[in-house]
């Protein structure tokens, strides 16, 4: 089973990298670009076929390590 994990910066937390990219896109003439937020994308191969168990474990992985929930949110998708 494969998991796709998305870690994003909480809306109320400043994202200076996102701001810099927004500025660069404006410089390139993409003036339609509003706010840009940069996050992380992780792909995990899981050695299980039990979806419920995988979801449970992924939640623990995210809470313990993959995201810092003080400043980040997370969500994940399971495939296979």
């Amino acid at each position, binding site marked *: 089973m494969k998991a796709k994990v998305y870690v994003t910066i909480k809306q109320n937390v*400043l994202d200076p990298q996102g701001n810099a990219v927004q500025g660069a896109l404006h410089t390139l003439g993409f003036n339609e670009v509003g706010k840009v937020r940069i996050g992380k994308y992780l792909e995990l191969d899981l050695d299980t076929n039990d979806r419920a168990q995988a979801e449970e474990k992924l939640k623990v992985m995210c809470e313990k390590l993959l995201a*810092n929930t003080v*400043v980040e949110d997370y969500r994940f998708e399971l495939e296979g």
Partner: protein
Amino acid sequence: MKFAVLVFPGSNCDIDCYKAVEDTVGEQVDYVFHTATDLSAYDAILVPGGFSYGDYLRCGAIAQFAPVMAEVKKAAEEGKFILGICNGFQILTEAGLLPGALIRNNSLKFRCHQVGLTVENAKTGFTNDFAQGEVITIPIAHGEGSYYVDDETLAALKANDQIVFRYAGENPNGSVDNIAGVCNEAGNVVGMMPHPERAVKEILGSADGARMFTSVLNAWRERNGAASIR
């Protein structure tokens, strides 16, 4: 008094911390590797700066699960003196020993220079040798030192007197409320982005950091009933 300086793969301020203890208070000090499983011999634990485990994923994210960290948590509960400097501060927040998180500087630049710090709490184990409100000079060297807490936690930090240092002049990283260092509720665990171990002699640009080390010796002596060094 016995100091431990933790060493993670990627620590690079461990020697500075060790030498700072030797040069300021001259007490016993040992390097303790990240794999250690017993810190019971130590009265103070210094978590030094650097790039532990390459700072992969997030600064301090992987270091928080090093074997020694279980012992650091135990020591914190026992009321031992723990100081996290720079990457050490990041590790302590990731480990949940201190509130908040440290994120990318708002300038996106690695800032490495002297800063003025206001001592906001001169009652902690690491700041009792300063005057309340005193402005001291200590260098910073970080790219991810912007301290973040939500409004609710900030209010709690203020109410509990947990803000230890604020940037006195320009805020170098965009931290919430100009915060440069905080402590836990009990006051025995302190974390800060600036590097006091790099400011222990005038020839280094400032000797103000030395008093963090004399402070903890004072605190330890007071706790153990010996005469203060002052």
